[in-house]
Each structure stands twice: as structure tokens, then as C-alpha cells.
């Protein structure tokens, strides 16, 4: 089966800094793929370029066979790619329910049956239904992350990119998040997740890709990748 997302030779320069140096990566339909790498290795840049936040300096991105390289963020969202940013965010001045409502109003028409037909159903799913009447700006950090997930899901993506979704969460919140993310492939949502927490990645992902200085240095089954001397080398003295 052809991959849902096929990234080839993707490059990104910021002035003199090479954030991505020609990355090839294929995301298979229905999987939860992990992307790891040291700080500054280009993980967020990879997501930003795929989702149109930044224009690539080179390379192509195919989503379900369609070339989406360099499209605007809203067009990529409507094509079916959801994104939660590394910096948790919501529409702070608006109500929690209104946040989710807005997020569901701009997706493309049609598509498969929606597992969460209403904003309320989505809030139930992420466990925020009790907070629907609050303003997003007053949510505690953990709830803000969950709201971010609900917003991305409201666009009904078939591929969801999560950039450090568990950063800043406590253990209880993290395991709740793991529970949610694991259900996504069952709802027809392929997931690609960045995180530094290898325990979390082992729980979520059967496959890992490793970035270092903007290049992919490993890609394969999680256990194999984590035993790879090249990967251990990169993380020497790090958090592995």
C-alpha cells in the first residue's frame, strides 16, 4: 500500500542554518509513527514544512499521492492533515466549546463517518466536557494541551501531527493522552508524533524515525532503532 504521507528530499534553510537537510520519510496509513532527535535536530521544522507554516527550500511532500508541497496552512488542514503545535495554544479569549466549534467549521466537506459529530462529543472524548463553558485562557496547562488535540481532531484529519503533546503534562495526564492517541488509528486517523520521552514513544509507536542535524539517521521498528549504535551515539549523555 502506498504511504499516506511521502516526504522526499525535504530541505529547509533558515538563513545560514540548515534545519532540514534532505529528509525522506514515509508515513504508512494507520500507524503511529514516532519522530525523535535531540533539541534543534529539525523535528518541529519537519512538521512546520509539511503543514505549510514554513515553505520548504527543496523537496516534495505527497499526501495520499497529491503534491501538497508549499501549500498554505489552511489548504493543508483542509486536505486532511491536523497539527498540534509544540507550544500548546487555543483561542484564549473564547469559550472552550466555541474553540472546538470554530475548529470544526472549516474542514472540507464529505469524508467518512465522523466519530465525534458535535463539539460536545469531542470535548467528551478528550475529557473536557465539564470545562465547555470556561474560557480557554483560564485552563490549566494539561487541559490546554487536550483542548489543542480536540481542535486538531475537529478538523477531521486523516493524518494528525502531534509535536510534543505530552510536554508539561503530569503522569496522570500523560497516560490519559496515551489512551486517547492510541484510539486514533481505530478512527481512521494516522498519527505522527514527536516527543523526547522514550518511555512514552515506546508505549505509542511501533516505528521510530530519528533526526539529527536535519538528517534522518535511523528509521525502523522502535526496539531496533533504540538499540542502534548511531542513535545511542547521538543521545550519548542525553535522555535515552
Amino acid at each position: 500500500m502506498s504511504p499516506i504521507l511521502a516526504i522526499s528530499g525535504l530541505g529547509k534553510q533558515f538563513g545560514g542554518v540548515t534545519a532540514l537537510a534532505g529528509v525522506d520519510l514515509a508515513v504508512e496509513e494507520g500507524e503511529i509513527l514516532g519522530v525523535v532527535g535531540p533539541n534543534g535536530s529539525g523535528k518541529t521544522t519537519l512538521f512546520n514544512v509539511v503543514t505549510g507554516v514554513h515553505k520548504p527550500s527543496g523537496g516534495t511532500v505527497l499526501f495520499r499521492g497529491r503534491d501538497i508541497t508549499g501549500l498554505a496552512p489552511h489548504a493543508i488542514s483542509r486536505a486532511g492533515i491536523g497539527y498540534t503545535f509544540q507550544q500548546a495554544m487555543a483561542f484564549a479569549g473564547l469559550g472552550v466549546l466555541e474553540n472546538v466549534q470554530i475548529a470544526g467549521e472549516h474542514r472540507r466537506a464529505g469524508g467518512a463517518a465522523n466519530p465525534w459529530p458535535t463539539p460536545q462529543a469531542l470535548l467528551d472524548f478528550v475529557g473536557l466536557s465539564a470545562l465547555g463553558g470556561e474560557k480557554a485562557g483560564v485552563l490549566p496547562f494539561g487541559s490546554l494541551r487536550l483542548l489543542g488535540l480536540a481542535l486538531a481532531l475537529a478538523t477531521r484529519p486523516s493524518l494528525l501531527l502531534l509535536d510534543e503533546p505530552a510536554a508539561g503534562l503530569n503522569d496522570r495526564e500523560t497516560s490519559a493522552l496515551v489512551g486517547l492517541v492510541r484510539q486514533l488509528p481505530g478512527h481512521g486517523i494516522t498519527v505522527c508524533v514527536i516527543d523526547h520521552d522514550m518511555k512514552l514513544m515506546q508505549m505509542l509507536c511501533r516505528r521510530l524515525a530519528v533526526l539529527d542535524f536535519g538528517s534522518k539517521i535511523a528509521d525502523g521498528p522502535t526496539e531496533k532503532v533504540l538499540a542502534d549504535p548511531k542513535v545511542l551515539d547521538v543521545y550519548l549523555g542525553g535522555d535515552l
Partner: protein
Amino acid sequence: MKTGNALRSLLPVLVILALIAAVPLFSPSNRFLSLAISAGTNVIALYGLSVLFGQTGILSMGHAALVGVGAYAAAILARDFGVGFWTALPVAALASAVFAMIVGIPSLRVGGHHFVIMTFAFGQLLAIVLTNGGDYTGAATGLDIAGPVTLFGADMSDLTRYYLMVVAFVTAAAVASWAIIHSSYGRTLRAIRENEKLAASLGINVGRHKIGAFVVSGVFAGISGVLLAYFLGHISPSQFSSFPSIYLALMVMIGGARLIEGPLAGGILVAFLPEVLNLDPVQSRIVYGVCLIAVIMLLPDGLIGGIVRALRVAFSGKPKQEAERDAAPSEARQ
């Protein structure tokens, strides 16, 4: 938002406007009616500005220029094509909307503070063009616009009748702005105001909607311009330059741009305050300046927002906020 709640938010404005419509029963002076009519035309423009600034978070310092486009369109249509008030209304609204688009497309691309400067420059530019337009625009003296405004055969030129007609237009503008606020379109604009990056990631075409909001504000401005032109009977470039634009921005901020009562309060206050306090133009400018600084520093939701909050505190003991309210930071904590 539930329709019941939404409707209830419209009610206070309708009640106030009903009271305002009853004013002629108390045989007000002509001076009062004239002031009220020009305040009313401002309020219509302010409802457009509240969609742009209050909902979308974009500040225009050229709104009076869009009013001017409407006013000149009405005057030129009447002079060259013999077109009357009611036909001029939609045409002038369209003309202002098109101008907004022409200014908005390049200006909103550069974003943020540049937009404020671009709209300011547009206001100045329009005044210069009108001043140097020769006979076509009447140069610095401007244009006369004569011709009766009739409604179902009745002559509306009489001051009291014109007053009532303007109140009707203000009501329509308030209802239109209320409908926008409570629609999915209004939610989209608020999302852009709160966080453009997030909005884009959720499928919102931020650039297009910002231009759209500016165009919508232009429609309100154009209608305001026609009403103003027919009321004054004479228009000139200086009425639509940067100073009047700054006044409009000031009025909407003083009243509170996010609340449906805000434009009404701002327009009335700025029109009648100098009258009530018996201030000369220089003094009233100083008072407005001080008001503006006070509002920006103390009442981010404007005067009405401040009053509503104070009442809430007085009745429930704690401030509670609503969706359209509150100047929250555009990004949640990092």
C-alpha cells in the same frame, strides 16, 4: 452559542434604540436633532468598525475615507446620473466595499501595524485626490447634493423624519452587526483575532477573511456616507481625512468595540459630550485624548464593557466574562 442567549444580547440595544426613536415626542430642538443625526451616521460606520476591530482585531485609521467614498459616490450619482437616495445606497455601499478591497489586499498582506499606517495613508491620499479632482470632485469646496429623500411618497427631508430614518438605519446596522457576531462567520473572525497561526492550522483562510472583514466594514461605511451626504447637503474632502478617521477609531474604543452596545455608546458620547460640557473644539479634543488613554489603560472593553463588569461585580461579587468580551492575550501560555 444558544439562540436564546444570543437574542437576549440584542434586546438592550433594541430597547435603547426604541427610546431614542421616541425622542421627537419631547419636541427636541433642531440643534439636538442635527447633532443626533450626525451621531447616528457615525454609529452606522462604527458598527462596521466594530466588526473589523472588535471581532477581527484589525484597527483601521482610514474608516472615514470609506465613509467619504460612499458620500462622494452618492453626490456624483445624483449630479451625473440623476440617481436618487435609495438607488445610491446600494451603489455607494458597493463602491466603499470595492475601495476597501483595493486598499485591503495589499495592506493586509503586510499585516499588523503596517495596516494601521496604510489605512491612515489611504485616508490622506483620498483627501488629496478629492481636493485636486477639479470640477469632478468639486476640489476643496466639495460637492452639493440636493434632492429630496422620499419614502413611500413621503418627503423625509424634514429634520424629525430624517432623524427617525437614521434611527431605523442604526437599528439595521446594529442587528446586522449582531447577526455577524453570532454567526459562524463571526466566530471565524474572532478566531483570527485571538490567534492567526492556530486559525490557519484549523483551515481558516486568514488573509481572505481579514480582507473580507475590511470589505464588510466598508459596506457599513458606504451607507453611512450616503446618509451623511443627504443630510448635510454638502460634502468636502476634509470631512473624510485622517482626523475624522481617528475620531471614529476613538469612538469605537471608548464605547467598546466587542459589545453590541459599544458603537452606539461611543457615537453618542463623542457627539454630545462637548455639547453637554459646553466645550470648544480644542478643549473637546483634549477631553477625547484623555478619555482614550483612560479607556485603553483602565477599560480594555470600552466604557460599556467596564459598566457591565462593574454591575456584575456589584451583583455577584465576582467578575465573569463572556465570549465577545475581554481583551485576553492572543496566545495561551507557552
